[in-house]
């Protein structure tokens, strides 16, 4: 009955590789997000999609490309990984039919780039 699920939970890879993180939500929400949490626990929004349409695109390198095949899924693909990409990436969703409804978070994907 997991609401927002991300895979994988851990991802260890070398610099220069390309990797993807998948996210799925079964809450029927319209909007999904990717957040990055750095080593100091600071959470910063990266992207937001509403009904498969890109809504928010913060200042994120072009190496990061979100893909939303349907409103229940928002995947994150990262090309040419760099050491600075090491972080925990959180997927989240919210129901925008409810006015300013809270975010529901996945458990995160810890990405380590060596």
């Amino acid at each position, binding site marked *: 009955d997991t609401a927002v699920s991300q895979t994988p939970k851990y991802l260890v890879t070398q610099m220069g590789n390309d990797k993807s993180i998948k996210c799925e939500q079964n809450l029927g929400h319209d909007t999904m997000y990717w957040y990055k949490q750095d080593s100091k*626990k600071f959470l910063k929004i990266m992207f937001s999609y509403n009904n498969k349409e890109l809504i928010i695109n913060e200042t994120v390198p072009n190496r990061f490309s979100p893909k939303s095949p349907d409103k229940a899924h928002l995947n994150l693909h990262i090309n040419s990984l760099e050491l600075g990409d090491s972080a925990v990436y959180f997927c989240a969703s919210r129901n925008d039919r409810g006015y300013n409804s809270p975010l529901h*978070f996945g458990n995160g994907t810890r990405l380590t780039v060596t």
Partner: protein
Amino acid sequence: AQSVTQPDIHITVSEGASLELRCNYSYGATPYLFWYVQSPGQGLQLLLKYFSGDTLVQGIKGFEAEFKRSQSSFNLRKPSVHWSDAAEYFCAVDLYGGATNKLIFGTGTLLAVQP
């Protein structure tokens, strides 16, 4: 620019003692405010939220928070802390509305609970 400040990076309290975690925001309009908790290796869980109305809001796990417009604050409180409350706590403000809103987080406060 809109921002959220949590002045305390790390707080230690004894089990059974009261707790107050501070949060200040900088935002021109009436903000929509949230407190989230993150346990180690977990995602963020919503504790409570303030949109409008009564400025004292109740949340899960015995937490409450009070919105004070004059102080631009939304401090989180709990009268008696349990060891299981040890976690990272994040205050957040919701900017804009509808599909273009985004949650801006403070830097977090790490709560340690002594037996």
